[in-house]
Structure formats: C-alpha cells, structure tokens
C-alpha cells in the first residue's frame, strides 16, 4: 500500500519505513516556533520539568517570533515580551525577532516562510493553530499547546497520531477574481468546522499548482478552521524558487504515491468557483457573495496571516486605486517585509501605500492586530456592534474584539470591492474591468 506525503514525512521523522493512519509515533522535530502569547507559558513549563538551568535541545531549531500583542500599552502584554527576551538571552538563541528593533518581523506564519524556516520534507511544530500554514511548502506542520512545546524544547521529540488524509483536487484554472481565500472558505463550508478533525488536508490539481506560494499558504493556513491537523501541498519549482531565495539549508521533496489511501477525495472544477464569504459566527457558514449583496457594512479589515500578505494587498490595491472607500478600512501588513513591499510595489506608477492612503484607508503596523481582538487599544479592534468584512480566518463571537460585532470572512478582492460600496460586493466586475 502506498503512502501519502504526510505519512511519508512522518515515517521518515520516526525512523520508520512506513506508518499508517492511527499509529502513535514519536517524531524528531526540525523546527519549534513560539510567540509572545504562548512562549512565556512554554518556558515556565520547560523550566519546571527539566530544571531552572536546563538547555533547549537544539538552539538552532528554536524560532521565537513575537507578533500577537505588540503595539499596545497593556503592561501584562509587554511583560510577556520581556520574558521572551530573558529566555533568549539565557539560552543564547539565534532566531529571535525582537520588538522595537530592525529585526522585528510580525506575524509568525509568514515570517517563518520569509526567513527560510519552511523547507520541504521537514517537521515543524508551533504554539499556534495556524502553524498549518507552513504545509504549503510540502512539509508537515501543526499547532500545539505550551505543554507539548515545552516537551519538544527539552527532548526534540513529540508523539503524533498519524492522521488520515483527505484530498482536495482542483482542475482547470481559477478565474481572475477568485483567490485562495474563496477556495478554502468554499471547502470549509462543504465539510464543516469539524469536517477534517484529526486529518490531513492535502491540496492537489493543476489549478492549485499554478498558485503562488502566498496563495498556497492561504489554503493551508485555514486547515484548522475545518479541524484539520495539517494542510499540505507537494513542493514543486514554485516552492524551491521561494525557498532558495531565503535559505541554503537542505530539504527533501516527498510525493504522495499513486496508490496512497485517502479517507476522502473530492475533485472541483476551478473554473466554476465563485467568490465566497463565511457569514457570522462560524467559518463554515458559507454563502456566495452574490447572495449577500444586501448586507450593509461598517468596516473592512485587510490583514493577518491569512489575508495580509503582499498578494492580498496587490489584489486590494488593484480595486482601490483611484477610488475612495465608503467605510472605515483597515490595512495591516502581516510582516515588515510586506510593509516594505507596500512602499516598493507600484500599480500604474503609484505605490500601494499611496493607493491605500489616497483611497482613505488606515494603515497599521505589522502584527496580528485585530485578527484576534487583543487588548483594548489594538488597531482595528471592534468595540461595538460593527458589521465587518475581513480577510482574517475566524469569525467566532468576539474574535475581533466585541461579542456584539458581526464578522464576514472574505477574500481581499471581495473586502476591497465591498469597502468601495459599503455593502458586500462581488469583485468580479471590478477585477475584470
């Protein structure tokens, strides 16, 4: 019996020739990532379990990226950054991206990619559920809690139950106005918020392989919104081009076998995809944009690890150029690199930053910002019953701040088109003009 890419990577990291879904195995970890919300708790457990003076298993494999509560006056939040600094100093860790320095990056999942920590064939754990994002590079990656992260810090290993795999294949070509966000919202709507629980979500098909790395990341990013353990896309030339610009570290490319066993398989025709939103208050509350055009909005939010990458802002800028937004529109680049690109990239001679400013949008600093609400002074946080269209990944009650707010999840195209009209709007005619 053949194996899927997920099974092959896990087997290789457990020193086995083969594994099957349901097997409990111990795997060797290539990278452990943590951030300001979960780092302090992880370090406390590590010290309690392995001793005050214990050293992490491999300094070079620990990556610490503060990103969640950054630009806030909240004293507890700022103390958490101090705890990260202190631990980095004690352990002499090379991969730390400190707040307030030139080295600050922003949202961890994109920073991992941009700094060269996503490499095909590797196993990466992070103390954040959207760690599934890294699977876009043909690697196994998933989110864990503080206890498991502390265990890895001490041992370099973790137990994993080998997941069954689900295969989502897209043939053809996505229409111009369709983004990866529409695709993942569509799939989550089909299978439900627990439709992939304990399972790997593998993306295949020529339409998927035509996507850029950033769009592939969006697909894998939201695996967790269907309960998935990991999202994964086989590496190809697009992947290795991206990786080679960012690291010389070795990698290994795995492919699923022809006769691999899938728990579920579905083939979609990419050409038939339509813009999708997830209505409040669940990512699987799917509707076609065309069915929601009467929903009036108070604000638009374009940001996060899902919808705050350069591709996302290029899409938004294409629609906003030379026009004015009708509602409060918040632009939050995920990382510094994306922020710098907003100044560098131009459409018709105008930088993206200028396009957004001239359209009347507000620009925030790179971080998670209002994607998860955060402290009261967070940029873009909802504080009342606002109706928001957002490129983020979760619209649970209170996720963006106020329990009274209503969040519609959408692609950057849909968010930008809607910002221009003040109600949910199909981007097709804007894009195809």
């Amino acid at each position, binding site marked *: 019996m053949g194996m899927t890419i997920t099974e092959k990577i896990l087997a290789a990291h457990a020193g086995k020739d083969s594994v099957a879904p349901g097997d*409990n195995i*111990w795997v060797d970890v290539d990278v452990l990532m943590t951030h300001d*919300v*979960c780092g*302090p*708790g992880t370090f*406390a457990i590590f010290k*309690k*379990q*392995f001793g005050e003076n214990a050293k992490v298993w491999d300094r070079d494999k620990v990556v610490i990226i503060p990103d*969640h*509560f950054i630009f806030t006056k*909240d004293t*507890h*939040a700022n*103390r*958490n950054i101090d705890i990260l600094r202190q631990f980095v100093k004690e352990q002499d860790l090379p991969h730390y991206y400190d707040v307030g320095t030139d080295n600050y990056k922003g949202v961890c999942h994109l920073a991992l990619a941009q700094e060269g920590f996503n490499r095909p064939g590797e196993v990466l754990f*992070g*103390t*954040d*559920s959207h*760690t599934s994002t890294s699977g876009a590079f043909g690697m196994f990656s998933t*989110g*864990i*809690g*503080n*206890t*498991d992260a502390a*265990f890895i810090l*001490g*041992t370099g*290993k973790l*137990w994993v139950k080998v997941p069954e795999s689900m295969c989502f294949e897209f043939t053809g070509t996505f229409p111009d106005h369709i983004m990866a966000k529409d695709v993942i919202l569509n799939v989550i709507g089909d299978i439900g*918020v*627990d439709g992939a*629980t*304990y399972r790997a979500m593998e993306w295949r098909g020529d339409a998927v392989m035509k996507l850029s790395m950033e769009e592939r990341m969006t697909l894998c990013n939201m695996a*967790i919104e269907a*309960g998935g*353990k990991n999202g994964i896309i086989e590496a190809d030339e697009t992947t290795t081009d991206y990786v080679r610009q960012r690291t010389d570290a070795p990698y290994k490319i795995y492919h699923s076998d022809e006769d691999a066993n899938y728990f579920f398989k579905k083939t979609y025709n990419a050409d038939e995809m339509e813009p999708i939103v997830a209505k409040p208050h*669940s990512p699987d509350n799917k509707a076609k944009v065309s069915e929601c055009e009467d929903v009036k909005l108070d604000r638009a939010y374009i940001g996060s690890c899902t919808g705050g990458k350069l591709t996302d802002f290029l899409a938004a800028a294409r629609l906003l150029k030379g026009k004015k937004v009708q509602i409060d529109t918040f632009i939050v680049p995920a990382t510094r690199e994306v922020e710098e690109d907003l100044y560098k990239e131009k459409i018709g001679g105008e930088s993206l930053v200028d396009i957004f400013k001239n359209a009347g949008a507000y620009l925030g600093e790179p971080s998670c910002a209002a994607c*998860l*609400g*955060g*402290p*009261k002074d967070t940029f873009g946080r909802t504080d009342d019953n606002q109706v928001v269209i957002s490129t983020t990944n*979760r619209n*649970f*009650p*209170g*996720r963006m*701040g106020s*329990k009274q707010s209503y969040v519609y999840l959408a692609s950057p195209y849909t968010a930008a088109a809607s910002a221009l009209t003040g109600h949910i709007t199909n981007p097709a005619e804007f894009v195809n003009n």
Partner: protein
Amino acid sequence: MEKIIEGLAYVLGNDIDTDQIIPAEHLVYSLSDPEEKKNYGRFALSGVPGDQAGLPNGNVPFTEGENFESKYSIVVGGKNFGCGSSREHAPACMEIAGVKAVIAQSYARIFYRNSVDGGFFIPFECDTRLVEDIKTGDDLKIDLNANTLTNKTRGKTYDLKSLGEVIDIIEAGNIFEYARKSGMIAS
C-alpha cells in the same frame, strides 16, 4: 488517579471555541504566578454568548463576580468542543476554575491533546447528545472503572467512550510523567 468524579454540570452547545473559553484580551496573565493566574479562572468561559451560557436557560455565569472558582466542575458540551486556537490557556483556565472533567460529543484536536498532555482534566466523549438531556446544575457522577456517567438528579446513566491509548498519559498525570515512566526522559 481518581476513579470517581462528582460535581455539578455546566452545559454548553456545539463548537465552543477557544475565544469563547478565554477571550484573547485575557491571554496576557502569567500562568505560573499563583495569584495572577487566578484571573484565568475568573474569566473562564466568559466569551460564551449570554443565551448559550449554561443551557437550557442560558445567562448562567460560570464564575461569579471576582470569584475564580466555579461551583460547576463538570462541563458538558456538544460537537467540536474547544475548536479554534492552540492556546493552552483554554484548558488551563477551566482547570483553574475547578473543572475536573469535560464530556462532549467530540473535540477539536489541539484542545483535546492539550487537556491530556497538560493533565488539566479528563476529556470524555459520549455518543449520546447529553446537551439535551442534562441541565446546568444537575448533579453528575463519572465512574472511570465502569466508564459511565450518572445524572443523579434525573436518575439516568450513560456509557462513556473508552479513553483509548491516551489513558496511559492520563494515568501518569501528564506527558512528562508518562515519558519519565517509559524511560524517554530521565526521572
């Protein structure tokens, strides 16, 4: 490990996500400072919308006022309990509030794993949709030997699903004790 767990029920619906269990604005407190961590108990389940909090009637606060401990120590949920983020603050805040067990139809993976590996409480599964049978405040008893749940208030008993392979970690106390017992890390 305790073989009998008794307590009052606090009943919730489907898809109770980690933002409802502990809203992100509270994720700033220390989990190791014994005084400061009480905040987590105080705000445990505070993000659940009022009409869903403590079914069937709703609007039952899990912890009251400044209290960090809840009078409810067994939480009953529907499908996909604990979905959303990987924050271990979620099972931790429930333990700090005094939760000994959760019984749900199904769990989100990371929440389940965190509950077991961190040794916060035992996450039981039950095929029966208890949310419709049990009312907040009912007196419950879990018998780990028999793998059953008894609602003493209503005189009904249900079978719980076997804990399967994770029983070894639960019995050891947490993943570290388990690894010490099995010789993976030095004791």
